[in-house]
């Protein structure tokens, strides 16, 4: 079983880090640079889990999650929010938008993989 994870993050370093950690854990990784790009990727890919950042240019994580949840074909895809926020408000907004769960940065690869495993069918 090869689980595909879409990561959406505007930071190259973070994308590289995500890819590095996830590939090492045996996931197939596809990446997008912001919410809009994420939606573009979703037009042709069906990831099992999406991991997204909140603060991004063009379309932020909230907008991206809302868009995923309002797409009939994608609405059942678990979305994990990546955030350095310890701020409750951000997390709640992400939840309101439809986030399945969250990962607090800086994450360690084990926690990241564990969170994905928990929501991946």
């Amino acid at each position, binding site marked *: 079983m090869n689980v595909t994870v879409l990561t959406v993050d505007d930071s190259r*370093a973070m994308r590289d880090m995500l890819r590095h950690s996830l590939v090492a854990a045996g996931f197939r990784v596809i990446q997008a640079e912001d919410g809009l790009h994420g939606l573009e990727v979703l037009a042709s890919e069906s990831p099992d889990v999406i991991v997204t950042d909140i603060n991004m*240019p063009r*379309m932020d994580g909230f907008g991206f999650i809302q868009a995923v949840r309002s797409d009939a074909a994608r609405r059942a895809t678990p979305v994990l929010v990546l955030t*350095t926020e310890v701020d409750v408000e951000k997390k709640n*907004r992400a939840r309101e938008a439809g986030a399945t769960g969250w990962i607090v940065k*800086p994450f360690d690869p084990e926690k990241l993989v564990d969170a994905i495993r*928990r929501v*991946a069918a």
Partner: protein
Amino acid sequence: MEDPLAAIKVTFFQECEEQLAELESGLLAMESNVADSETVNAVFRAVHSMKGGAGIFAMDALVRFAHIFETSLDKVRSGVLSATPPVVAVFLRAADLLADLVRAAREDSAVDEARIAALGVEFERIDHLDGAPEAAHVVPASECSAGDGGGQSGGVSTWNIVFTPDQALYAKANETALLLRELHRLGEVEVELDESGLPELQDMDPEGAYLTWRVTLRGECGEEDIRDVFEFVQEDCHLEISKAEPYGFDPGTVITGDNGFKFEFFAPIVEEPEEEDRKAEVKSEANVQAAVERPDPAAPAAAGAPPPQSKTVQAIAAKTEAASSVGATIRVDLDRVDRMIDLVGELVINEAMLSQRVLEAGIARSSGVAMALEELENLTREIQDSVMAIRAQPVRSVFQRMPRLVREVAAMTGKQVRLVTEGEATEVDKTVIERIADPLTHMIRNAIDHGLESTDRRIAEGKPAEGTVRLTALHRSGRIVLEVSDDGGGINRPRVRQKAIERGLISPDAQLTDEEVDNLIFLPGFSTAEQLSDISGRGVGMDVVRQSIQALGGRISISSRPGKGSTFSLSLPLTLAVLDGMVVSVQGHTLIIPLGVIVETLKPRREDVFPLDGDLNVLKLRGGYVPIVDVALCLGYGAQHSDPAQSVALLVEGEGGARAVLLVDAIHGQKQVVIKSLEANYRAVRGIAAATVMGDGRVALILDVDAMVQNTATDARRDLAESRQLEASAGER
């Protein structure tokens, strides 16, 4: 084997550079009141993103300071704090410190804790400035540690879990089956489905949630472990966890101790803030020492209530709109682009070779072959231009570094300075950009330190107290022109002249035009330690600036008006990958001379050549004498002096304004050539700057004119001084 983490680190630092630039330009926009909300967002994101990346690599100081900075920026973003000039001033200083912290992290050098602390105080001050209600509340790590997780005493326990998902749980793509699977990992699980809440089929909402799960879990786990399983869904379900033990208490039981201590067994609805604090403590071990600012006390109260929907929707709409105006870009390895440039260079050569063959074969110009070939030629040129354009970048990245420099130099000199930049979007090859930063830095320092008068003096002369330094970039006839101008006092010509005489650069009675006097400052040996201040000093004079510009195939010039200011103007090629050259031949060897150094071509007469000192000949030129460089002799292509009368002479100007006449056999015209490195497969060769490939497929060498001029027999500097004196004395007659 490259360490992937090391590679990510490299990426992180590259990204930091970009984000620091973004941060600075955003803050400057805020400073001049032209910032919109997206600018503030971008500024926030830049700091936030650096913090996130720094967290990966446990760069504690950086994370800590970025957090303080970000918190303040977030207040501006949410309108709690307004970006008044004093606030933005602190932000700018914070951006400078952040840049230094990034550098410290990269170089693994010491962090200036005192500066961090000082800025921390300033951040607190601006919070008060704006009458913000709460000061940054520092919570010691020990205080925000989690309480006893509840029964995590080890050993096997039995837990009763009652779990009723809400519809929202499914809407967020969570799955009961997955949660049960997770529970199963904690120990032995018995699941009982309570379907008493299930309505009649006709009343059922297909997306509704009606089921309750009763789970008995036996395992070596505590309540925390179970709560962790439900971490993501706790808001979207009803969850009860209780320890199935004989002495257990039902939820709601209250125990009151002798001393008035009261303990109530809650129905296990976890309070969000507690959970959050615990997380902050557990998950960010890297910054436990960091000042963890408590979330706004208002936030937990508002947590349950959905944020005003309209606001979110508006924000998304705005973002999407912004997105359409941003052109799509891709990042490409420079190596790939360079490889492509090489290949296109090859294509150009091949195309030229083909044309030559077609010509040799005697095919008529009007034939289909020749016409197709012409089309190919046009196409090839177009491809070459397009490929070169890929490497082109706006000079913005260099310009963005200057405001900080200006602030620093202004502070050091006690002058008031306004920096005006124009033409930031002007594009030039990436390699050129990398190499103009230092000369520009020096010129701007110089403009503030030497160009602008002191504030008092300016006021006394009726000028505005604030001096203006202007940095502009523009394209002019296939080159980029950069100008640094100031509205200061202009070059003090009598003093410059006096200094040049003292240094033996000109004879005391030399007749020089204003322009010639101004240009004396570029002579090697003009700037000396004595007149170098801390700021423009650093042991570097304008001669070094000129040298580095000329090394790029550029020229520097100055114009100055007393009392009005000076303008330094740099003209540079748009790329270092191609060069405009003069094709010449020497003893049957084809050579390229960079067009930029050639002042004029001459046909020397034998009677104008005079032996000067040993091997050195000079050419009498308009009353002056210029040393002659016999290229064939210099490169060892010939053993005898060439006959000047049989040669073509090129008057060239090298480093530091040193002039010489190069003797070659013949000139074959001008050509744009693709520069190829000799060092890549061989090594540097004295007198040769690089190589190129000609239309016939052969390699031709590009002359290093500076080395040639210096090579001229004995000491080039002395020659220069002598010839200048000759020139001066000749001028007298």
